[in-house]
């Protein structure tokens, strides 16, 4: 049992160390590390990707908890989750502790003039790509694959509604918007 817990911790520590950006980019690594080690089957991985879309939290953390529970119960879940979180925790702690001088430097202030709009552009890109794929599920923007044949008007309606609401009521919180959208989803997809 103890060996299994250590193995779970170590595998997810490695995964946490090599996860850059979004979790889905890491699926090949999950595949080789987890399926290779016999901790997860291909079918379970595919099922879990769908489940993870409908549960809160980052994909890397979710799959650590899932694989940990499957193989080692609650203790397994704890070891795997701590493993996946620990690398970024340590690295960010070091950065937060030692970076203040760098972040106050003249060079960083100049760089920041470029970074501020770039980050806004990146966030806008995520919003645009997510929105476009919801409305036209067959689009693949990165591959220049513009397939508009499937059109989800319900997704468009929900977006138009929540966007209008957030313009009209300035103080509406994003959590409230998400909850309203969930209710709209049940109504539109379930009843129409």
């Amino acid at each position, binding site marked *: 049992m103890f060996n299994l817990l250590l193995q779970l911790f170590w595998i997810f520590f490695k995964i946490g160390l090599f996860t850059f950006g979004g979790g889905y980019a890491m699926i090949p690594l999950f595949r080789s590390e987890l399926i290779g080690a016999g901790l997860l089957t291909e079918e379970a991985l595919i099922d879990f990707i769908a489940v993870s879309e409908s549960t809160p939290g980052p994909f890397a953390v979710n799959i650590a*908890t899932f694989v940990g529970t499957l193989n080692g119960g609650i203790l397994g879940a704890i070891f795997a989750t701590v493993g996946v979180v620990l690398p970024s*925790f340590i690295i960010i702690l070091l950065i937060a502790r030692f970076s203040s001088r760098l972040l106050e430097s003249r060079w960083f*202030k100049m760089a920041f003039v*470029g970074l501020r709009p770039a980050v806004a552009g*990146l966030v806008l890109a995520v919003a645009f790509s997510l929105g476009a794929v919801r409305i036209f599920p067959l689009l693949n923007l990165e591959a220049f694959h513009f397939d508009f044949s499937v059109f989800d008007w319900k997704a468009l309606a929900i977006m138009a509604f929540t966007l209008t609401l957030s313009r009209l009521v300035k103080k509406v919180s994003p959590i409230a918007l998400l909850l309203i959208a969930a209710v709209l989803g049940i109504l539109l997809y379930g009843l129409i």
Partner: protein
Amino acid sequence: MSKAKTVGDLFLTFMKIGAFTFGGGYAMIPIMQREVVDVKHWVTEDDIVKLLVISESTPGVIAVNSATYIGYKIAGFWGSVAATIGVVLPSFVVISIISLFLVQFQALTWVTYAFKGLRAAIAVVIFNAVFKLTKKTKKDAFSFGVLILAFLAAVFTGVSVIAIIFIAALLGIVYGIFKSRPVQGGEADV
């Protein structure tokens, strides 16, 4: 506020953020702006930008990176521990329960519908986050150009986010040097 109370507050705030972060790390930006910038005034919009730059250039998921960073800034080591455990706890609890009856969960069609609705709105709340992020940005041609270039590169090419961030930082430095040097016949306005 006493230190212990701040640590407890960090835990609860990040637990709330973790509970509502669906569909990737960027979805937590609007919720974080609301809870951590607008409501608690712990950090500024500029700190969120710094946080994203750091998150994208280091390993790990954005949610954990953000919690650790803000937790440390507000209440030191124990602040970062509390915020990190807080942000992870909701998914930990939900997934441990769901993994016991994975199949039944998928069979709940109304859950699927609710999440279809929710995922459509995630695009909107992330879109709204952009306005807050640009509030303090100078409205000039340079900023606008960098924003558009970063946007196009991220949507239509496979260029990595780290590369985009690196190039933007370089452009900022070059622009800064260029602007601080008086140009003949022109005026330096720095």
